[in-house]
């Protein structure tokens, strides 16, 4: 029930921001479409902690600046490799993840893919490891450092 209310509120807020129509009839219709979409999502069973991970979404702004900085740094690194492809030393490493929830593990894998130079190839839910393809030794080593893992775990708030 709480999840349906939350999802309706979010969808309605999104609709209000994007529609630009503010008369009575359209506001009511907009509300009912948001409610309808949320009810269908609830019936599909996708409105759980995995589909709407509010805990993580609320805390995202905390790491945004750090993440942007990491992305810019590794962009420069990959550009250097592109200009001189001989520098590439591709390798696979397995990264241990300390996240407790599935949504947290997915966020960790997404952050790894988001920083250029490393792509998460396979996520193992039972072992809590992420198989990462790194473009050079330095990129692969950066993934193994506990920095990103700690940041993502702090998003879970547990």
């Amino acid at each position, binding site marked *: 029930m709480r999840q349906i209310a939350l999802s309706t509120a979010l969808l309605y807020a*999104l609709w209000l*921001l*994007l529609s*630009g129509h503010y008369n009575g009839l359209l506001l009511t219709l907009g509300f009912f479409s948001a409610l309808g979409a949320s009810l269908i999502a609830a019936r599909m069973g996708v409105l759980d902690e995995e589909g709407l991970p509010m805990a993580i979404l609320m805390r995202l702004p905390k790491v945004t600046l750090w993440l*942007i900085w990491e*992305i*810019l740094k590794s*962009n420069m690194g*990959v*550009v250097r*490799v*592109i200009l001189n*492809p001989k520098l*590439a*030393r*591709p*390798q*696979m490493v397995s990264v241990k993840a300390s996240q407790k929830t599935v949504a947290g593990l997915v966020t960790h*894998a*997404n*952050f790894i*893919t*988001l*920083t*250029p*130079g*490393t*792509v*998460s*190839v*396979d*996520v193992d839910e039972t072992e809590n490891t992420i*198989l990462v*393809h790194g*473009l050079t030794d330095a990129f692969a080593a950066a993934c193994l450092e506990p920095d990103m893992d700690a940041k993502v775990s702090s998003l879970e708030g547990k």
Partner: protein
Amino acid sequence: MSATDIMQFIGIASLLIGSLAVIFGALGLLRLGDVYQRMHGAGIVDTGGAGLILFGLLMLSPDWTVTVRLILIGFILVMTGPTATHAIARAVRLSDQEPDNLKAKKNSERGRG
């Protein structure tokens, strides 16, 4: 120089750097070795390229409705981009494509045995 001038300057600079990042990403797609390595080239396009271009447009946006839409586009790109890249990487792995250098190592081991 007023505040809007400075914002305009930052916006244009960021658009230029973003476009350059997209060109480097495309170059990476052509120059790097195997599928996995080329994916890192594509990564520059979706993060540095798209990010800096969106930031540039944000600085140049005329009113708040455009700003809200640009932020939403950025959020959606950040959520979907890595998922799509991961889907490709996983599909490549499931089709038993080994990275170039690992394949070479395996072959040499096989040669010795």
